[in-house]
């Protein structure tokens, strides 16, 4: 039975987020480091597959820090990761921390006001639940670009939508 509580919904969404990120990352690792560093075009938010994944990591890292009330520095980027393998090991640690945070949420936590400074130094604040919705949605936007880049490089990757996720993980 699906957990339709508010925190159940958030946990389900993050389980999907990790599943979809891993699915595409696995494909890119299979193509190798050189392909991941190839410039695929300026029309994308970041021109390489590695840069796109580095941005996904960086956003997850920045938002988790904000949720935890930790002061954040600049947004990390492609240059902060030597290789995809380097990114993977740091991302695994971040995901474990993110999972502990999401697993520990109570319904009262969701309304907590998170105050932070954005990357331009402007002070902003909002309820935690809204930011919890933002991060997976942001990742879907950039995974779509990764899917387009992969289609250019090697062919259309397997679907990473929520309906496919729900079907593959529920066994129904």
């Amino acid at each position, binding site marked *: 039975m699906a957990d339709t509580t508010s925190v159940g919904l958030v946990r389900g969404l993050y389980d999907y987020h990790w599943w979809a990120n891993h699915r595409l990352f696995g494909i890119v690792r299979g193509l190798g480091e050189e392909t991941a560093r190839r410039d695929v075009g300026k029309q994308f938010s970041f021109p390489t597959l590695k840069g796109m994944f580095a941005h996904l990591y960086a956003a997850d890292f920045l938002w988790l820090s904000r949720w935890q009330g930790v002061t954040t520095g600049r947004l990390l980027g492609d240059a902060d990761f030597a290789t995809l393998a380097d990114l993977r090991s740091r991302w695994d640690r971040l995901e474990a921390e993110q999972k502990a945070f999401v697993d520990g949420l109570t319904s*009262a936590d*969701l309304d907590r006001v998170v105050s932070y400074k954005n990357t331009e130094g402007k002070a902003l604040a909002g309820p935690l639940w809204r930011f919890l919705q*933002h991060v*997976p*949605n942001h990742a*879907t*936007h950039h995974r779509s670009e990764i899917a*387009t880049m992969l289609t250019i490089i090697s062919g259309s990757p397997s679907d990473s939508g929520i*309906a496919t996720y729900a079907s593959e993980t529920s066994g129904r």
Partner: protein
Amino acid sequence: MADVTTVEMVRALYDYHRWANRRPFDVAIALGEDVAARELGKHFSFPTIKGMFTHIYAADFLWFQCWKAVTPVRRLKDRDFPTLAAVRAPWDEFEKEQAAFIETLKPADLGRTVEFVSVAYPRPDGRPYQLPLWSALQHVANHATHHRSEIATMITMVSGSPPGTDLVVRHFRGQGFPD
């Protein structure tokens, strides 16, 4: 103040969904029908900006029938719309129906099982996908974000990077902040 409920989170997600769909649509309309119908590459899910918008609308339209267990389902096609401008009025009407459904959701509805037959990703045994309504609700909004990203790339190619459609942008604009 009571804790935020699942239903409130779904409503907020759909408020975002409608805003984020309209924002690049207005940009595309301003670029004109020729640009919206231009072939921009086979590496996109659909090769034209118009085709991408009609796919988002068609998916919303299809899933709405699944949410309500309507059978047989009616599927919209890009060729049903001669122009991008012709999409707006029926999509507006549909959005009102979709919004009414979302507004009247009750907590008990969210665990209900929804069935869906995919043309793009059919199951090997031909059976429908089954998922709880709340997953199906999240799916539709997430699906649109995926294709809006392609639209943003396409608009970047034809005229320059469009205004952002991040969920936090919607959140802070709702509070009177600029981009």
